[in-house]
């Protein structure tokens, strides 16, 4: 039988102001089971009436031991864990992990696989932003937005399912390429989505951007300046909302992002509305990237999607019957995996939430010696007290939504 652990107030006394000790301010517990904390986040709030004096986040309710568990698995086995970290950005997590492994073992990825990776990563970015938009507006009492956003997200999940067989946990991107080439209907499905989605963004804008009820809830709330945002380690849309045009796809390009023509949307103000504005603009940029990706994909029709370096990438099934060497590679890879050279790399990618970094260290064996995930939600959540001090408790909900946290991402 599990017992609830007693937390004495003395342990937490240094986190609240002196006024809490005299009973002048009230301590309120929010979460871990709360509809507006976007998961199992617990906040200890010190309130003066309705105004937040201090906010102490307590995380770890979804601590999964992913890092330790990945150390016990071989490189190709460990990848299934990456999907389940940030479950709104599964393709992006696979991509970050595969880029780190590829950098570690110096593996090249064929161009067609690069293009497919970019298209899927951008679709995932749209899907993730849709969940953010749906839940953020749901928290601010716009129920219909939630239903609309999930309707559009289903289309993207159908595309993922057509290529990988799974809706969310795809594990489609593999070290040295992708699992297999996309299905024949892929291009048509993405094309349909490109035609369908712009109209929807305009609808969302119509429902929210000029809606006074929404604007009143988000303007001037949770303001952070550019310098403070950088000091707090903000990245991604949360930093761009403060006017810093920093995006890993531009400054440290990967997977051929340098060949695509797109802009990094920014907004000034640094408040909830600015972060909303940035994400809404990112929809358009992602669509632009996908459109260019489809053009490239047509040029590369029939090109290989997996590296031909069979020391690290299993040979295709057709070769195993005819080539002795392929059979040996296949056997070696699926029984003992591949050994990575001794060393360590840090690979940052732009996840929908910010900089997702993988620190991967190898000791020369077939398992990662140490893997650390630098996750954007962890860093953004840390700034929550900073963002929420002095605001009303109802605004806290808007602030949590605006930094777009995923608890699986922050707790690992």
């Amino acid at each position, binding site marked *: 039988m599990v017992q609830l652990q007693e937390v004495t107030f003395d342990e937490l006394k240094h986190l609240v102001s002196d006024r809490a000790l005299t009973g002048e301010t009230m301590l309120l517990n929010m979460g871990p089971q709360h509809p507006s904390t976007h998961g199992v986040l617990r906040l200890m709030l010190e309130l003066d009436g309705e105004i937040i004096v201090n906010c102490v986040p307590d995380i770890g309710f979804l601590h999964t031991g992913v890092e*330790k568990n990945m150390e016990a698995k071989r490189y190709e086995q460990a990848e299934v864990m990456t999907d389940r970290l940030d*479950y709104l950005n599964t393709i992006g997590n696979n991509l970050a992990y595969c880029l780190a492994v590829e950098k570690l073992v110096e593996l090249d990825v064929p161009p067609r696989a690069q293009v497919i990776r970019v298209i899927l990563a951008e679709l995932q970015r749209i899907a993730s932003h849709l969940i953010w938009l749906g839940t953020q507006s749901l928290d601010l009492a716009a129920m219909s937005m939630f239903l609309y956003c999930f309707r559009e997200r289903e289309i993207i999940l159908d595309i993922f399912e057509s290529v990988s067989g799974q809706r969310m*946990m795809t594990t489609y991107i593999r070290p040295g390429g992708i699992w297999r080439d996309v299905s024949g209907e892929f291009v048509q499905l993405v094309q349909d989505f490109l035609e369908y989605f712009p109209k929807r963004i305009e609808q969302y804008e119509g429902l929210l951007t000029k809606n006074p009820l929404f604007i009143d809830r988000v303007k001037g709330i949770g303001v952070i300046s550019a310098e403070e945002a950088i000091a707090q380690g903000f990245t991604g849309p949360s930093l761009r909302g403060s006017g810093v045009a920093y995006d890993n796809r531009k400054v440290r390009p990967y997977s051929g992002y340098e060949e695509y023509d797109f802009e990094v949307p920014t907004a000034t103000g640094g408040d909830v509305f600015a972060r909303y504005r940035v994400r809404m603009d990112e929809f358009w940029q992602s669509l632009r990237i996908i459109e260019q990706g489809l053009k490239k994909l047509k040029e590369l029709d029939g090109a290989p999607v997996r590296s031909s370096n069979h020391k690290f990438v299993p040979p295709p099934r057709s070769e195993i019957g005819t080539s002795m060497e392929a059979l040996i590679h296949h056997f070696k890879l699926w029984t003992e995996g591949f050994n990575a050279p001794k060393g360590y790399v840090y690979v940052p990618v732009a996840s929908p939430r910010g900089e997702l970094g993988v620190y991967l260290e190898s000791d020369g064996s077939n398992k990662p010696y140490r893997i650390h995930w630098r996750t954007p939600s962890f860093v953004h959540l840390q700034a929550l007290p900073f963002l929420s001090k002095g605001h009303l408790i109802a605004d806290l909900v808007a602030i949590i939504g605006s930094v777009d946290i995923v608890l699986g991402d922050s707790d690992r």
Partner: protein
Amino acid sequence: MGIEQKLGNMGIITTSLEKAVNWSRTRAMWPLLSGLACCAIEMMAAEASHYDMSRFGMELMRASPRQSDLLIVAGRVSRKMAPVIRRLYDQLPDPKWAIAMGDCASSGGVFNNYAIVQGVDEIIPIDVYIAGCPPRPEGLIHGILTLYEKVEREKITDWK
């Protein structure tokens, strides 16, 4: 409705109390609005427009355990979260049911490690297990309908 031909002019039908109560329990089962991890997203998808769980009388998710009958454990349960889940379950008023949604809640799934409870049935009694990582929304709906079948079979002597 077709039922009125059988009613006669009295407006009365006869059935057993067991059947009538079990039927009514299944038709307004309110789940607790509580998600843990990946499966919670699929649970949201099941509620949302495309899969529309309200067809089965389940659109009303209550945020307070005091107002709900069904706990859907949607996602992995960490050792830190386990006491909270137990307390939530204890707060549900009887009669109450619980569904373990997904592999992690059912058995620990891929996370066979120090941080994750290896199956939420170690801390609360579970009525229906749903396989999948995460289960599709259809899977969740199927699980709930399976729970309905179970509830309809309940005996008057087992009522709480």
